[in-house]
């Protein structure tokens, strides 16, 4: 901790040279230590997550029905059957397919929204649109799950589009998760686009570019690392999204690639198994932790990539 309580001593004569050394106050030290402990709690939480997940995962692999190789490569996931199979591939595949559909939906919507807000909308329109997007981000995901199951699948997918999908299907889950992550992508991307210096735009205008050309050829490339950060963060949210897929995508672990059929994601497995009465200590119970650990690692990697990209654009323009 700094020895100079004014914290403003650089440059001019510092407080110590004017007033003499500060009196040490015991209370001040206690407060500083207490505040540090509060901030350190967050590290304790992370350690708690890692230790609890890793610990049970180790006992999961110690179980004789489970092998690490089978877990990673086999194509069957039936932990609650009498002859349980523990191949995580169907769950990972379900997660990737649904997140992929979500990103196909959310990337154009998110970037389009960000470009419109940052480059076209008047300040008044922007002030009206941004809170509405925040409202969308604030709607609980269980509500989107209800919407996907009771409206989107029967009325839009089967009715209007005539796609002949199952009651529970990966497509509805993926599309609605996509809408759900639009605010995430849009807000990070818009921040990055607004941070592009005005002089770059003016340079392009000076060369006779239209607003579209400025947006597409100057602003978007200049904000690319921020836009990427938004997309990666959106992907991380899609991978971790639980309620929509648990309600609307079904609970059938499958290696089929057809999103019109039910599929199960990693999160949906955790939710569905955690809801039931799985006895503590059973292999099914431990499977929650193993799948949770894999999920945590996937989102952790995505988050680290996203933080890295955000840092890059901050460094360039700030």
């Amino acid at each position: 901790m700094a020895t100079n309580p004014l914290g403003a001593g650089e440059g001019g004569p510092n407080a110590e040279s004017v007033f003499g050394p500060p009196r040490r106050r015991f209370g001040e030290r206690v407060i500083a230590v207490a505040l540090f402990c509060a901030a350190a709690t967050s590290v304790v939480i992370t350690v708690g997550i890692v230790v609890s997940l890793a610990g049970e995962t180790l006992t999961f692999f110690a179980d004789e029905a489970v092998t690490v190789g089978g877990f990673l490569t086999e194509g069957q996931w039936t932990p609650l059957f009498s002859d349980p199979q523990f191949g995580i591939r169907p769950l990972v595949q379900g997660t990737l397919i649904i997140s992929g559909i979500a990103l196909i939906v959310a990337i154009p919507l998110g970037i389009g929204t960000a470009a419109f807000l940052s480059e076209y909308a008047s300040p008044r329109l922007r002030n009206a649109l941004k809170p509405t997007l925040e409202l969308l981000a604030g709607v609980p995901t269980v509500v989107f799950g209800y919407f996907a199951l009771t409206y989107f699948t029967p009325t839009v997918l089967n009715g209007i589009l005539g796609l002949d999908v199952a009651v529970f299907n990966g497509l509805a889950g993926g599309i609605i998760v996509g809408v759900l992550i639009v605010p995430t992508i849009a807000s990070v991307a818009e921040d990055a686009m607004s941070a592009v210096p005005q002089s770059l735009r003016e340079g392009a205008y000076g060369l006779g570019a239209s607003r579209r050309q400025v947006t597409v050829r100057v602003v978007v490339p200049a904000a690319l690392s921020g836009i990427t950060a938004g997309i990666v963060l959106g992907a991380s949210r899609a991978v971790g999204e639980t309620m929509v897929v648990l309600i609307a995508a079904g609970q059938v672990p499958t290696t089929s690639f057809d999103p019109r059929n039910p599929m199960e994601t990693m999160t949906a497995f955790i939710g569905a198994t955690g809801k039931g009465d799985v006895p503590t200590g059973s292999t099914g119970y431990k499977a929650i932790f193993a799948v949770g650990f894999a999920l945590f690692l996937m989102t952790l990697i995505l988050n680290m990539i996203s933080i890295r990209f955000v840092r890059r654009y901050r460094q360039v323009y700030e």
Partner: protein
Amino acid sequence: MTTAQAKPVIEVLGVPPAGQRLRDSLFVLILVALTSVALIVLAVLLIDTGIDGIPQLSWSFLTSFPSAFPEKAGIESAITGTLWLMAVVSFVIVPLGVASAIYLEEYADRNRWWNRLIEVNIQNLAAVPSIVYGILGLAYIVRGPLSLGRTVLAGGLTLALVVLPVVIITGREALRAVPPSIKEGALALGATRWQAIWRQTLPGSIPGIATGVILSISRAIGETAPLILVGAATFVAFNPTGLDSPFTALPLQIFSWVSQPNDQFRMLAAAAIIVLLVILIILNAAAIRLRNRYQQRW
């Protein structure tokens, strides 16, 4: 975007060719369409839920307990459960979140590796899926070291962990918005570091902190996945009597009704969604009012 004094580009370069103008207007149309999609989905969602749910809303729906018969079922225990959770979450996140924000903003020396670790760690925690917190809650709060059982306290603590990073991040922004000159003035008059923070910086940042706290609480009460794992029951025919009481909550009740194949229960889910959304809108409106009313321009 052109500066005021400069001649408009059109006067200098002449009118752009028709093909380019067409592409320009097409581009605007596409952007408007892309921006509207999310808003249209939100509107359809609200209208659809309203059509299904509003006819189900009645005083007896709000004051009855869950039941196997849809016409008798209500959400009283879910509402009281949610209120209990809100109380527990606020008790945890306000002191812990504000203290962490003060430390990171006012005390932490960024050249020390442990302070950078705390910072990156909080950014990461903010993006950890909420269901992972549910697993943590199940392993360490419901069972394991804390062994609180499937109680209000366990549910509230788990939800508090989910939103804590958001409280810290918004708290830091609020503290940063208070100009350092205010604190430096106090320091120059002989205040200690803590006196300057406690009496000058903190009061100036309270509207921003309060906004962040309210928004975090509203996020917490919409969370469903962690509560599923922490094992809140979905059929609780009594109100929680204390922190050690079993409980249910609105989003869980919604989830439980949506999972029923019976259409009448799904209508009830729509009605419960409306109640949950009304609570969230009240909280958000309070947060926006706070922000607009007490926000100081320095």
